[in-house]
Structure formats: C-alpha cells, structure tokens
C-alpha cells in the first residue's frame, strides 16, 4: 500500500486565517469566540459563537463576483481554505474557465449540516409564500449535501473523485481517513480532505434548544469554551474550514514537495447506539475500539502516542472521553500523552471541527509545540490525576506521534494518527 503524507494545509478558523496566523493564535491562546448580538436578538441562551472575522471581505478577494453569487458561508470557507491549501502544497492555480483538469487529484470535503442558511433565508420563505420562481438559480448548488466539495472541485479543476462525507461532528476527521484509504489503495496521487461548516443560527438553534450549548458566559465569550473544566457548561458553536492536501509519498517526493507529516493510522466506526451509546452519546466500547483500530492499522503501541488532540467539546462527555483514552492506553496518568482541546480556542466547528483540528494537530506536530488548552484551570475532578499532562500554557515538544479523534451524533467515531516527518 502507498504511504501517505501531508503536503499542504489551509485554514480559516474563528481565531485566525492562514497557517502562520493560526500557529500564532494557537501558541498565544488567542480565542476566536465572540458575543453575537444577532443571537441575543433571537433569544438564544448561548449568545457566543466562533465565526471567522472578516470572511465576507476576504471572499471578495478570493472569488470572482459570478462565482460568489452562488456561495454561502460554508462554501466560502471551503474555497478560502482549499485555495490556501492548494497554494501551500506548491501547486499552480488553474485558469478559472479553460485549461487542463487535474485528473490525479480528488477531494473529500465534509460538512455536518450544510447550507441551512440558504434554505432558511431563501428557499423556505419563498416556497411557503408560493413564490418558487423567485428562488432563483443558485439555491440547489448551495444546499445540495455536496455543495462544499462541488465548489472546491470547480475552483481547482479537480478531476479525481470529488465528494462530501457527513457524519456529524466526526465529519472532518472521517474525511481525512477516507482520503488516506483512497490514496493507500492507489486510486489517486492527491486528495484534499477536511471539513467545513457555515455560519447559521438555524444550525445552532437546534443545539441551543437541546441545552448543550454554553450558557452563563455571554458576557465573557473568551471564557465560554471550557473543555475538561469543572465549570464546563456546554459547547460553543463554531464555523470555518480546515483542509489538508494528502498525497502519496511517491508523488510528493517526485515533485519535491514539502512534507509536514505522515498519516500512519486511522479508523472509523460506530458504537451501534447500545450499551451506553445513543444517538447523542458514545458507546464507550465503540470509542475504545476506534482508538485501538487506529493503533493497530499503524502497527503502533499505546506507548508510542505523544500527544492527543481530543474531541473534548466542553460537555459532560469530556471526562468519559479521557477515561476511554486511559482505558485503551493503560498508561500511568503522570506518563500520559499531552492532551489538549483546540475547541477551547475556536469552539466546536461541527462538520468543520475535524478538519480545523487536524490542521491544528499537524501544525503542532510539525512545528514542535502543544498549544495550551484554555479555560480548564479548574479541571474536572476526575481529570485531576492528568493535570500535569494537560498543557495550560503552550509548550515546546519533540513529539513524534499525535492522535486526533472526533466523535459525533449517531455514535460515530474517528481517530487518525499523524507522525512528524523527519
């Protein structure tokens, strides 16, 4: 099977745009969580969220007007992160209209919910008013499940398989694993992989109604996302996109590409919504099997993991997640891998979470640091034994293996293992 490496990355997150800015944001513990007056007007309990700042202005720099008329926020994030990733991989931008198609590059770009902003603002009102004709021509391409991957395929003239996966909050990580499998099997030279999620009160409203969003921090937005904290009070909704260029090692070396890391293992599964699992909660055995499956696919032992970038959303599931990691790794808490939560700085990007957090993971690994996990000075009591392994401040490391996991509604799990490129 082919070895697979990462040769490019792109990110537009609530706290940064671009790799250099994102690295600094992670290192400095810069939060991207803000109070949104719109959510206050709409009587949300949670009135804070993570939205990439200035993205509409950025969109006008990245996209021609005729393309932008049919791009909602999720597609804009995909396009920006995707173009950045493409350029970072050292590939030439194609002509926007004519010219060759790259038949050897595909894309798996996931989204959790998709273009609900377009449905809510454009489609539903006009259909209900009996004015279907006035929907115009751009709604279908913005609301089809594959809107994000379709958008990227057109921007970059991709000619391999271009598809969208969707598995709730596991989506972005699952996309990376699917792309990895695809390349291992020799079906393409490159596959762009990651996740995107738009800015939408329609998406966030459902979670607010479930009472799983952070409440009580509307006047302190930067403190609202509190993974692993005793005072965690629900997750902060986020948005953005993170996309990675996965490439066979052979292809990368042939063209002399810069390599960030190698993907050495990965696994996805479902807990079957049994034995503690449900639509909204993980079956612990499923989580453990997923992590074990990733390790087995890499031929690594539990002692090889240096860093865990957890799912860790700031709900009651955080202690259970760490318990599952501990159960699989069987390591003394003092010798536990570093474990942090990128959501503490950017919130929970839902379908984008895995993509943005895989970029954060590979950046940390390739540039030798683990970022501080914010807002957990008051650790949850069951996590106290791990206190010395949860970085409250950013630390330099020489970590070699990082495990990135994502878990999602539907009791679905994903775990990918990155190895620093040496």
């Amino acid at each position, binding site marked *: 099977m082919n070895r697979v490496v990462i040769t490019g990355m792109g990110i537009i997150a609530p706290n940064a745009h671009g790799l250099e800015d994102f690295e600094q944001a992670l290192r400095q513990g810069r939060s991207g969580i803000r109070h949104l007056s719109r959510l206050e007007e709409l009587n949300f309990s949670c009135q804070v969220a993570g939205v990439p700042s200035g993205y509409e202005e950025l969109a006008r720099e990245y996209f021609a007007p005729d393309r932008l008329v049919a791009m909602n926020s999720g597609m804009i994030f995909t396009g920006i992160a995707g173009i950045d990733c493409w350029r970072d991989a050292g590939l030439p931008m194609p002509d926007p209209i004519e010219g060759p198609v790259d038949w050897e590059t595909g894309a798996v770009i996931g989204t959790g919910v998709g273009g609900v902003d377009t449905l809510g603002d454009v489609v539903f009102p006009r259909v209900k008013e009996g004015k279907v004709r006035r929907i115009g*021509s751009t709604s279908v391409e913005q609301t089809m499940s594959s809107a994000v991957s379709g958008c990227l395929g057109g921007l970059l003239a991709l000619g391999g398989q271009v598809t969208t996966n969707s598995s709730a909050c596991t989506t972005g990580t699952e996309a990376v694993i699917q792309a990895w499998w695809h390349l291992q099997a020799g079906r393409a030279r490159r596959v762009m992989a990651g996740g995107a999620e738009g800015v939408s009160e329609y998406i966030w409203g459902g979670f607010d109604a479930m009472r799983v969003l952070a409440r009580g921090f509307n006047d302190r937005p930067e403190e609202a996302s509190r993974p692993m904290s005793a005072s965690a009070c629900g997750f902060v909704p986020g948005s953005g996109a993170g996309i990675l260029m996965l490439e066979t090692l052979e292809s990368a070396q042939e063209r002399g590409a810069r390599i960030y890391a190698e993907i050495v293992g990965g696994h996805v599964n479902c807990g079957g919504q049994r034995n503690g699992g449900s639509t909204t909660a993980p079956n612990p055995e499923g989580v453990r099997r997923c992590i074990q499956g990733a390790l087995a696919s890499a031929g690594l032992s539990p002692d090889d993991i240096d860093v865990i970038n957890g799912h860790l959303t700031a709900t009651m599931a955080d202690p259970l997640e760490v318990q599952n990691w501990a159960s699989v790794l069987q390591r003394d808490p003092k010798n536990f891998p570093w474990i942090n939560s990128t959501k503490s700085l950017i919130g929970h990007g839902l379908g984008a979470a895995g993509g943005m957090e895989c970029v954060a993971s590979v950046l940390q690994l390739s540039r030798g640091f683990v970022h501080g996990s914010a807002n957990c000075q008051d650790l949850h009591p069951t996590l106290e034994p791990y206190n010395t392994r949860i970085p409250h401040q950013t630390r330099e490391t020489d970590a070699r293996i990082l495990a990135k996991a994502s878990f999602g509604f539907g009791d679905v799990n994903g775990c990918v293992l990155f190895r620093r490129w040496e």
Partner: protein
Amino acid sequence: MDQQTALEKVTAIIKPYAKNLAPLEEGNLDARILEDLGVNSARLVDIILAFEDEFGISIDDETADKVRTINDAVRVVSSQA
C-alpha cells in the same frame, strides 16, 4: 424610460454574472450574454428576476427565452417599463 438609462441598468445587473467584461466595457450591444459575456446559463433566471425588480415589470418565460443579447434585454425592459 430612455434607452440610455435602460442600457446602464441592464449592464449593471448583468455585470456581476459576466466572466468576460470586455464587451460590456466596449458598449457592444450585440454581445451575446452567454457566449460573449461568459454568463453561466443557469444565471439567466437570476438576471431576469433582477430586471423585474429593477424595472417593476413582469417578464414571462417565453419572452425571457428570447433574451440573447444586451440589445434584446434593453428592448424587453424598455417595452414594459
């Protein structure tokens, strides 16, 4: 409405959808909206809706299908506005 005003408004509406702006900048009234301006054919629907909003008119599908050039568009909106 005079032809010049109609032309300016029609041009402003079509411009964001055009990949090739040269014919618009040259004032080529015979430029074909799809072939010469490079407008995505699906977007003709949006352009017709924008004409209706801008000029306060209603354009039926049969008339819309006959709008091929800038001149056609100006003629349609001028005849109804």
